[in-house]
């Protein structure tokens, strides 16, 4: 064997080993997050933890039922506001986006998706909490919706652009007006992908804390009124974690596990849907 070949094989093995080490290092945080949350949080899981209200310090038992419902409520309200705006903007960008207005909207969406979420929280505070003189679910939902809209608009645009132009033409040639063609034929064809994009946006919104801290604030009780402060899993975890009480620390871990399960299952569902969609298209 020539020495060049020996050397090249050694370099090949070294590079493969380095790449494997990089993968392992990248996996360490993920594995340790999962391990820590499960090992410290699993013990606190019980039916009551999902259904009961939080208890005051020192009183055993209690749960995060109101925070779980609150997160779902906030995200639901945010979807009511954010989905029509985000998907509508995406369709506009795909169908009319080559105009100066379209380029402006696209640029704005790209900039907005990079704005830190706490800044969005401050904006919602200024826009809604200050005039209402009260923390409220609607303020939190607006903050989450502002976070959802830009990414949702851009992914909807990409998905609508993937719909073949021949389908638009087929619909227009049947004498279907353009707006109806966009909604009933083009958007419907892209719907599978848009559902996946919505699930990912919902999962991200459900995991946000900063925009809720001074908008929805928190609440020790059940609340489904949009003008009242509302508990959420993330803010509840934050409050429990910064408290000086051992019992609340344990509850923070368990609530973190619940949040992880919620966000994780949404992501898994999104992956499953997009994968089965790809398979059906083949």
């Amino acid at each position: 064997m020539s020495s060049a070949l020996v050397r090249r094989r050694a370099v090949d093995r070294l590079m493969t080993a380095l790449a494997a080490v990089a993968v392992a290092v990248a996996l360490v945080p993920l594995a340790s997050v999962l391990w820590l949350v499960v090992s410290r949080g699993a013990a606190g899981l019980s039916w009551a933890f999902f259904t009961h209200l939080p208890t005051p310090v020192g009183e055993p038992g209690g749960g995060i039922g109101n925070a779980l419902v609150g997160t779902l409520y906030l995200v639901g309200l945010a979807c009511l506001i954010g989905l029509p705006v985000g998907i509508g903007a995406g369709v506009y960008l795909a169908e009319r986006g080559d105009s100066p207005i379209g380029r402006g909207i696209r640029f704005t969406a790209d900039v907005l998706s990079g704005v830190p979420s706490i800044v969005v929280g401050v904006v919602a505070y200024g826009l809604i909490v200050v005039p209402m003189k009260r923390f409220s679910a609607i303020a939190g939902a607006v903050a989450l919706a502002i976070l959802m809209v830009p990414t949702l608009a851009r992914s909807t645009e990409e998905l609508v652009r993937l719909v073949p132009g021949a389908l638009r033409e087929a619909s227009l040639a049947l004498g279907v007006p353009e707006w109806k063609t966009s909604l009933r034929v083009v958007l419907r064809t892209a719907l599978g992908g848009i559902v996946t994009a919505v699930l990912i946006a919902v999962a991200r919104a459900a995991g946000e804390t900063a925009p809720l801290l001074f908008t929805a604030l928190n609440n020790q009780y059940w609340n489904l009124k949009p003008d009242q402060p509302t508990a959420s899993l993330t803010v509840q975890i934050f409050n429990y974690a910064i408290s000086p009480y051992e019992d609340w620390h344990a509850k923070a871990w368990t609530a973190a596990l619940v949040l992880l399960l919620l966000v994780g299952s949404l992501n898994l569902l999104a992956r499953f849907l997009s994968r089965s969609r790809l398979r059906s298209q083949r």
Partner: protein
Amino acid sequence: MSAPAKLTAVDLHAFFRGTEVLRDVSLEIPPLSVTAIIGPSGCGKSTFLRCLNRMHELTPGAHATGRIELDGQDVYGRDVDPVHLRRRVGMVFQRPNPFPTMSIFDNVAAGLRLNRIRGDHEASVERCLRQAALWDEVKDRLGASALGLSGGQQQRLCIARALAVEPEVLLMDEPASALDPIATAKIEDLIHELKTRYTIAIVTHNMQQAARVSDRTAFFYMGDLVEVGPTEQIFTTPREQRTEDYVTGKFG
């Protein structure tokens, strides 16, 4: 010609971003007959067809001048709604383009539903599928996805879909160019059937096809209408040298 023309183009010019792709075309399409439009690639024959139902102007940067008359009425007139015009002048495209999210039945009914046309949709779907010679092949799986059909079946489904809104004119843009010879023969038979009810204009690359299916043939070259006449005359005794060179295969 004895009967008045169904569609008439008068001094039609068409442009893409300032480039003139059709120059001063005047052509009459008689009713209940097949008019073939032939010519080499890029000669403007598809553009001409797309001017007839105002699909041309949907392309960004495209516009047309001149007149196109449907039953004597200018379709580019101020008071004409292009959406309404396209219900009277249907179109079938080069590649079969059924709606992928819809079943076979829903594809045919799409035009009726999207346009909110009331009536017995089931009867309309059956009538159109029979007219498109597809009924016997799909009657047991109307609820199945349209994507499960072969290319030739998909193209006949697209013809049935176009017929469902009861157009008067059917424009066909190379409807068989993506199909094999057997599927092509079926489409050609179908065109023979359909001309008893509809006025048909068909763009084709295939000169034998033009000779087989059409009553009149128009030859386009580089954006000009070179010659139009009865199909037999165009293929046997053309007046223009360019027509003769093209139909005898000297170029194109």
